[in-house]
């Protein structure tokens, strides 16, 4: 299913963006990704207020979760036009009629002005997608702010209770189940993440332990160290669980890791489908509609004033699974 994403300019200039979205799949486990890149015009600096209007070819109502209808507008701020961000924005538009999408264009310097304008407009809530958007939006104190697609949210300086987050990864238990489903012989798994992910590590350890899988975990501080650690552990594992911690990963490290993994027959699980080209066995991804749904719940509870019971980071419920062609043939 294709949807059109239009980006709006002040003064009624809207840029219509076409995006392809894969809706909820029939199985409910896999997600389709945009097949074509976003068609875009040249975009000047976002002064005074960039707005993205997303028109969606809506699915039949019976296939979609019941929408939450609000009367006040919701501002959706995306850090950049990455698919992972726009997919979530599109899913949110599906849920909210009066939602406006704003893009920061990846420009850290311009975020301050954009966020102040969003605050002045008087939105009922702000959804920040990506680290850049989240880092800017947490400065807003008058409106509820929910961020998502931020893996290293521990780096965010969250000062008030009006800010909550949604996990950037699918539930680890579900991920492991899905992985084991496609690779039942998996026995020893390695995992390398940067500092500040103790919760993640604990969750992973618990999930592995419950499934009788050994999990080797190491915290690294750079891509070099990640590579070094991977080289060391690659002889002792048969699967590697890659998390999207960009602080300790680089293209060169990923390339070498892929070579080492191939040499030592280590199967990779990667966090997005595009990384299957590394030779990964399976992609264990988040699901945009799942993220949007969780965001909706969080916003709803925050709107009700049920902030204290809300965890700082709400977990997702679904996992998207995509196996590599080699793995599919093997199965």
């Amino acid at each position, binding site marked *: 299913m294709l949807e059109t994403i239009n980006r709006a300019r002040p003064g009624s200039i809207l840029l219509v963006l076409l995006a392809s979205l894969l809706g909820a799949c029939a199985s409910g486990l896999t997600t389709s*990704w945009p097949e074509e890149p976003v068609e875009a015009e040249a975009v000047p600096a976002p002064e005074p207020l960039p707005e993205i209007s997303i028109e969606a070819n809506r699915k039949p109502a019976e296939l979609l979760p019941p929408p939450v209808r609000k009367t006040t507008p919701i501002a959706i701020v995306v*850090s*950049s036009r*990455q*698919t*992972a*961000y726009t*997919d979530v924005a599109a899913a949110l538009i599906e849920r909210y009629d009066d939602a406006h999408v704003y893009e920061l264009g*990846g420009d850290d310097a311009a975020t301050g002005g954009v966020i102040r304008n969003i605050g002045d407009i008087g939105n009922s809530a702000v959804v920040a997608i*990506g*680290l*850049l958007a989240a880092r800017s939006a947490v400065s807003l104190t008058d409106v509820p702010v929910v961020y998502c*697609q931020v*893996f*290293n949210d521990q780096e965010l300086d969250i000062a008030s209770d009006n800010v909550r987050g949604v996990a*950037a990864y699918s539930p680890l238990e579900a991920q492991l189940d899905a992985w084991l489903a496609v690779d039942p012989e998996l026995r020893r798994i390695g995992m390398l993440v940067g500092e500040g992910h103790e919760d993640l590590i604990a969750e992973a350890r618990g999930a592995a332990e419950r499934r009788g899988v050994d999990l080797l975990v190491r915290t690294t*501080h*750079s*891509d*070099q*160290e990640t*590579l*070094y650690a991977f*080289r060391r552990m690659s002889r002792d594992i048969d699967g590697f669980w890659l998390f*999207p*911690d*960009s*602080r*300790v*990963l*680089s*293209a*060169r*490290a*990923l*390339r070498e890791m892929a070579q080492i993994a191939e040499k030592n027959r280590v199967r990779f699980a990667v*966090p*997005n489908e*595009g*990384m299957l*080209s*590394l030779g990964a066995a399976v992609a264990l991804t*988040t699901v945009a509609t799942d993220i949007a749904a969780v965001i909706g719940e969080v916003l709803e509870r925050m709107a009700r004033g049920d902030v204290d019971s809300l965890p700082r980071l709400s977990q997702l419920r679904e996992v998207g699974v995509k196996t590599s062609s080699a793995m599919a043939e093997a199965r």
Partner: protein
Amino acid sequence: MNAVVRSGRRLMDRLAKRWQDFRDAGGKRGLVNEILTIQLVSAALAGSLAVAGLYWGGQWVLKDNYARWALQWTNELNELAAPLYLAEDDEAAIRLESYVERYPEIRRVRYYDRNGEVMFVVPAAETEDAVDPLEEKRVAAATEVMSADTPFLMKGGVINARRFDILAPVWVETLPEGTLFGDDPLQADVTASRELRGFIGLDLDFEVFHDGLLSNMRDAVLVLLVLLAVLGVYGRHVLRKALRSVSDLEQPIRDIALGDLDVNFKPAVHREISDVVEALQTTVAALSDRDARLRQLANHDSLTGLFNRRRFIEALKHESIKVMREGHESALLFIDLDQFKYINDACGHPAGDRLICKVADELRRCVGESNVVARFGGDEFVVLARGSDEAVSEAMAETILNSMRRMAHVEDGRVFYAHCSIGVAIISNENLYHDDLIQQADQACREAKLAGRNRYRIFDASEVAEQRQNADVSWVNSLREALDEDRFELRFQPINRVDTGETVHHEVLIRLRGEHGDAVAPDAFLPSAVRFGLMSEIDFWVIRNAAAAYQQHQSTVQGLRLAINLSAHAFENDSLTDYVRAMFEEYKVPPNRIIFEITESLAIRRPLHVDQQINTLRELGVAFALDDFGTGYSSFGYLQQLKFDYLKIDGTFVRDLPNNPVDQKMIRLIAEVGQEAGMQTVAEYVQDAETMSLLAELGVDMAQGHFVGEATMEPEARATPILLDTHRLRKLRK
């Protein structure tokens, strides 16, 4: 020790012998050694080039390998650089030490912080103090190659590089936030942020590799030298074997050079030498053919194909030796054709040649194959009758005579019979010397001719014959000495008119002054002079001395005129006319004061060159007299053609003139014909007054003889007494 000394001496002796052989060969180099030297030098050069190429190629290969190793190590530098981002990880340091120990080429690893300050050095034995911090320039340069394709700096020599200094930056990268959520981070156009952590320096030393290379090359050179030595010995053996075919040619070629054409060439294995052998065989065949042709020319008469004189004498010598050894007898037959000159003069030389060939064939047929026939001279043949005693040789001579008598030769419609005279000499133990044998057979042949021709004579070694033979032989030397010592003399016999008795001219006669001062008549020595080829010289001597005599006596004898005899041999000399003219000029002789007398046979034959000489002399003013007319073969018809001034009637017609009416009629006829032909006649051999008177009656103009006047030392004008009552006188008075 003694064995070593002996070996050394043997080696020195061998070298000395080689040197002596080299000098004996005229300092010429041996082909085997030269080819071998070229091969070995070429091989050594190629080997040297190969070793040099190997060395330099090895250098380049090593350097290339060093660079690739350096790249590999650099790729592993990230791990080697673990201490830069795992400062508290002791295991990493230990692992690094272990890694470095595995590669002896890595002498030292230096770690610098991002400012170029030394952090630590591996191996640990090296102190940080021994390592200088990086200069700012190097820090900047190394920082620039961060994330480049070859992310390191390498310092080392271009040639013979053994040590390298590698400096590489160590950095960490992070992906932009969110990259890992969606798109392929390797494909996405994302710019990683990089953070320099420090530098790592590698000191590489490939001395061991170089030493190994040089050692291997030394071994290769040694192997090459050994191979060259082995190839030299083997090559020499192979070359000598290959060139043996050339050496085998030496002896046959030497034999050929010495004239021995009966040589055998060993067949050659190789194509090139085989071609040479074939060419030599062809050359030998050609030489043999030419030799045979030369032998044929040297040993055979070109006209008849019979043996020539030289070859016959060889055969005669061999036969003499055989006779001496075996004691049997053989015979030598000397054959001379009778009147051969007649056909030669009458029909020309080609006709004579044809007759000679016919005679040769006939003789060959008569004597059989076991005997030898040879042409000895113009019309002279000899036969060596092997194993023939006197009786057999007489039979053979008779057979030859009969055969020749039957043989008729036709030329120009005229039939000629070539009769011959044969002299036989018997070869026996007492008579072996070939010169004697030939002389004896010749002598016998002449006797046969004297006896009437067309017959044979067995040589009779009687005393008279022997004396004659000896005299004949001795004449040769005497004549030669007489010419050289000017011992000939002239006599002057007057020729007077028959009617008036007055002296008209003198015939110049020659005499040989003997050892005792006696004068020898020409009949005694002229035949020998003719036989031994001295006649022409004698004729020229007479011309010169007659001219001188004319100059001497022309003032004392009024109207002096001299008649000089010229033989046919004088005309064989092309310079006759020039000589006569020169003598006339030298002695101031008017040509019209000279008369040349030639024989009837020469006049009739008159070959073209003789005719031309006679004409030239006549134009000069000289008169000619035909001598001895009546004895030869000419008919009166010839007199019409012959342009002579005088006709001298042979003495045979005059000698018995008063008593022989036939002679009288003949002389009358000759006188009348001479008169009609415009010639004056001279009668020779006039001995008395009666003959003189009769000659006048018969119409002869002049007379010569004892009655007219003896030959004197000097010309004298002495008139002959004339009988007044002769018929002739009466006619004159009338």
